[in-house]
């Protein structure tokens, strides 16, 4: 079986700073894979490199068996879509939801835009009432739903999720996580999800990779993490930290 995403010894260099130092990764089709690490660990850079948004210095990325070149073609973006962290920054402030959703359809030359927009909005639980609103008229959770609808409207098979809920309240986070799980089940999507929160990753993903300063520290199954079968101190520290504050008397 060819991997949905295969990353091999990827290096990303910004000016003289090595953000990724030879990271390799395999995600199987239909799998949900998590990337965990602190800020600056390179987890978002890895995601952005796959989407073609970071300067790749060496190494290779293959999606569904096809090795990607320096420039992504249109077909790539029909397969791979991304949802960004900040729902306040990732929607155009002067476009209505309808206009936002039409953009990808126009780029890819879809004719049945009307039907698709309605379906996409229904799918993320927004309905037609939201179609002609501007993003400033929506709450954070609703905006993130629009961003997910925009990613889904081209019917991709792979979704790259960059901290999709870290800007949201806990109760809204639960709703968005449930929505993501639901669409993944229904459409048999492959997820590659970045988060700094171990609890979210173990909830959403089957396997995960822990990263630190541009390198992969450890590859784990989510079940191992739950059982605390970790081998690296760094992962253990992350696990301890996610338990909350412990007073040392």
């Amino acid at each position, binding site marked *: 079986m060819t991997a949905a995403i295969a990353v091999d010894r990827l290096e990303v260099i910004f000016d003289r700073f090595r953000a990724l130092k030879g990271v390799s990764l395999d995600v199987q089709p239909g799998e949900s894979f998590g990337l965990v690490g602190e800020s600056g660990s390179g987890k978002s850079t890895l995601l952005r490199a796959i989407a073609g948004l970071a300067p790749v210095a060496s190494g290779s990325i293959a999606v569904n068996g096809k090795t990607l070149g320096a420039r992504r073609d249109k077909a790539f973006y029909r397969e791979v879509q991304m949802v960004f962290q900040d729902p306040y920054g990732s929607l155009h402030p002067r476009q209505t939801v309808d206009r936002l959703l039409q953009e990808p359809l126009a780029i890819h030359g879809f004719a049945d835009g009307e039907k698709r927009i309605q379906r996409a909005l229904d799918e993320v639980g927004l309905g037609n009432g939201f179609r002609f609103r501007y993003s400033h008229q929506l709450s*954070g959770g609703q905006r993130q739903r629009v961003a997910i609808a925009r990613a889904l409207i081209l019917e991709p098979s792979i979704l790259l999720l960059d901290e999709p809920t870290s800007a949201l309240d*806990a*109760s809204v*986070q*639960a709703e968005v996580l449930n929505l993501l799980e*639901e669409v993944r089940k229904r459409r048999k999507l492959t997820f590659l999800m970045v988060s700094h929160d171990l*609890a979210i990753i173990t*909830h*959403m993903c089957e396997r995960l990779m822990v990263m630190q300063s541009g390198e992969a520290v450890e590859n784990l199954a989510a079940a191992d993490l739950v059982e605390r079968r970790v081998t690296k101190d760094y992962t253990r520290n992350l696990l301890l930290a996610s338990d909350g*504050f412990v007073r040392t008397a």
Partner: protein
Amino acid sequence: MSTLLDVDDLRVTFPTRTGLIEAVRGVSFTLGRERLGIVGESGSGKSQTGRAIMGLTPPQARISANKLAFDGIDLLAASPRERRKLRGKRIAMILQDPKYSLDPVMSIGRQIVETLRTHEKVGKAEARDRAMAMLEAVQIRDPARVFDLHPHEVSGGMGQRAMIAMMLIAGPEMMIADEPTSALDVTVQLDVLGILDRLVSERGMGLIFISHDLRLVSSFCDRVIVMYAGKVVEQLKASELGRAQHPYTRGLLNCMPKIGADRHPLPVLDRKPEWAA
């Protein structure tokens, strides 16, 4: 336990184009020399409560309360001059993001010295020594180097420690921390909380810890106030959070993913209109 702060029926109202918005609607609590957590989601009025106590509410907003007293001083009747004397000296506030709340064009050391010399008559050399000692107290390893750095040259965790140092240097009796660790990585978060915890208990300060993270607050504070839509829906001991009564508190605790709990889909919060009533 002596009461440091007494808040009774605090209301903060903002005039908008569509009428008055009550951000805080009758909040009452008292604070001794303890750690009190205020928890709520965005828009619950938790930050506005903290800002009203500190006197940082925007000028267009109206504040009213039956009582808002710090150590016997009526804060609402106090003149701006008197409040300025309290702010920084006796009541201090730590803000969320050191990137935005430190002065970008002033070195960290100078900012700490500035706070100290505003409130106390000390010479330059002594002020510098005390700032150094304070930087050491917040576990900055090389205080002499950090003293001369500007905020953009340090990490988030380091910046937050510098802000704590700045707030503690005048020896306040009460500290309001508004999401002090939300902008930090989990591991750094715990370091900063550890420092805060030690300094607060050593100096016997009262601490108001404002956060959206119910679990973090319950592991850090003695007592927790849960706010929803500008009101206090529940007040309880942090150790008894598991026995919370209000459906909002329970829902908030429940909807967070936990390591080891296999719940698909996650329970979501079913908001009842009567909670806000």
